[in-house]
């Protein structure tokens, strides 16, 4: 299991209901269902990935997360998860508000642009950073937002939601291994994972 997904799972109470926005091939949902007995639903835009999820026995809808999330009633899920997707969202504040409307709590993870390697690359080479966590050139990246762990804390105040828990982790893009970063997370963590709720 990918280290960051395992960390996300540790924020979820057993037996709860979960909506995974941008669920990909359904690895997290499948893990959550198998290991801690959650009832999961996923939303994913790629037909191939949606089909793969349904074939493996997950309940998944094909569509755009920004639109699909609007259909659910208030508080429909215990948790709404947005894993490694926030940096690709056009209207992050709008999506976070929707997420906290349909979910009692939200779990948001994203690659930390404040990591020292990113900073050093820009400073040292003068080129837009390309790292293992952000492996794209500026012209082909789906990541249209640049977020650091500190940015997200400021964002929580601007938008008005509460951060209940945070895990700063260091792991590779598809890394099974990793560790939690306690000391200077904004400089040393490759990903941030936040458990949030309405302010």
């Amino acid at each position, binding site marked *: 299991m990918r280290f960051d997904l395992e960390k996300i799972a540790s924020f979820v109470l057993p037996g709860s209901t979960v909506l995974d926005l941008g669920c990909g091939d359904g690895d997290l949902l499948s893990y959550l269902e198998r290991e801690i007995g959650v009832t999961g639903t996923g939303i994913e835009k790629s037909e191939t990935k*949606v089909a793969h999820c*349904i074939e*493996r026995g997950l309940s998944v809808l094909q569509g755009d997360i920004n639109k699909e999330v609007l259909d659910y009633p208030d508080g429909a899920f215990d948790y709404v998860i947005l894993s490694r997707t926030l940096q690709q969202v056009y209207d992050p504040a709008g999506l976070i508000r929707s997420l906290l409307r349909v979910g009692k709590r939200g779990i948001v993870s994203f690659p930390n642009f404040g990591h020292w390697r990113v900073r050093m690359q820009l400073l040292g080479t003068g080129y837009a950073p390309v790292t293992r966590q952000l492996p794209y050139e500026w012209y082909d990246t789906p990541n249209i937002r640049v977020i650091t762990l500190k940015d997200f804390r400021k964002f929580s105040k601007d938008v008005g939601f509460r951060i209940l828990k945070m895990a700063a982790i260091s792991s590779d893009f598809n890394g099974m291994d990793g560790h939690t970063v306690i000391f200077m997370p904004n400089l040393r963590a490759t990903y941030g994972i936040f458990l949030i709720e309405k302010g």
Partner: protein
Amino acid sequence: MSEYIEHDRSGNSIGLVEKKFFTFVHPPNEMCLESGARLGPVTLAYETYGTLNREKSNAILVCHALSGNSHAAGYYSKDDPSPGWWDIMVGPGKGIDTDKYFVICSNILGSCMGSTGPCSIDPRTNRPYGLNFPLVTIGDMVKAQKALLDHLGIENLLTVVGGSIGGMQVLEWCARYPDFVVSAIPLATTTRHSALAIAFNEVARQAIMADPNWKGGNYYEGPKPDTGLAVARMIGHITYLSDEAMRHKFGRRLQGREKFSFDFDADFQVESYLRHQGNKFVERFDANAFLYVTKAADYYDLPSQHDSGSAVKAFSRARAKFLVVSFTSDWLYPTYQSKAMVQAMKKCGLDVSFCEIEAEWGHDAFLLPNVRLTSLIKGFLARITKETGKEKNAV
């Protein structure tokens, strides 16, 4: 739906099957139809494949579309040239695996493939009903199917599955008998016909009624309105394909000639194809049944039938877990219509999966061999079976 009766490429099949009949609601206990009319006795032609398990928890109802029948899979005899209409999906080890599930398929009420319809004998006159046959709705068809399942001792359906008008029956099942349906797979369907869909059906019906042989529906003792029915079928076939499908299948290619004939023969392949489909159809289908079934489809309006025109309210009674599938090139029941039902299901807090399959074959895509559709259905059914088992154990 078109006829795509293909042999399974793997040669795998359920084998020999038998068409059976169930007759019920004998007078004076006729069936009360949605229109207020009464009908009885009613016969349904049906087939079953596989074995009902001891817990009676593995029954699957397959609902057919406009021109389908109870013969979903297998062969009637060793020399039977073609298998049932969904043989690619229903059989041992297939998407709907007859080694695991007990599959039932019945011919819809109002049709002409063994079930009671306008070409059946009216017991009051001993002559075919013709237009004396009352208009039946999708709801009436489902009510009749329920009577059949009760007769077969089925207590609930693991899944009800169908495409197009079969998909309407699936949706109707979920709203009408919510506790009977564990899960549902509506394919390439809609909760209500668009004006476009009604328009095509109306032109098709007009073609039949304009045929001088139709004679107000009383043609059973003379020549049949074959020309009208063939034209109706040709119109249908246009709506089942797509611009892209037709471009690939026919383009502007000529049929059996190098140059235009400069008369009104079938010059183009597409003309020849439509004529062939039309002529083939009249051999097996009744013109009046075509009128009745298309009208039932046009009348179908799940949102208004069940509550105040709101799809959300219509689905609020449903308990089933859904797998909704649409196809990119289907312009008869386009994806937006599937998305609208998915949206309503979500608002009701229902468990729903949805996939829009990339397919170039238009509305007919649901009947064609499609690895993706097969594996979606297979995976979904495996999950529902597992979850049903768990829930039972928990109880």
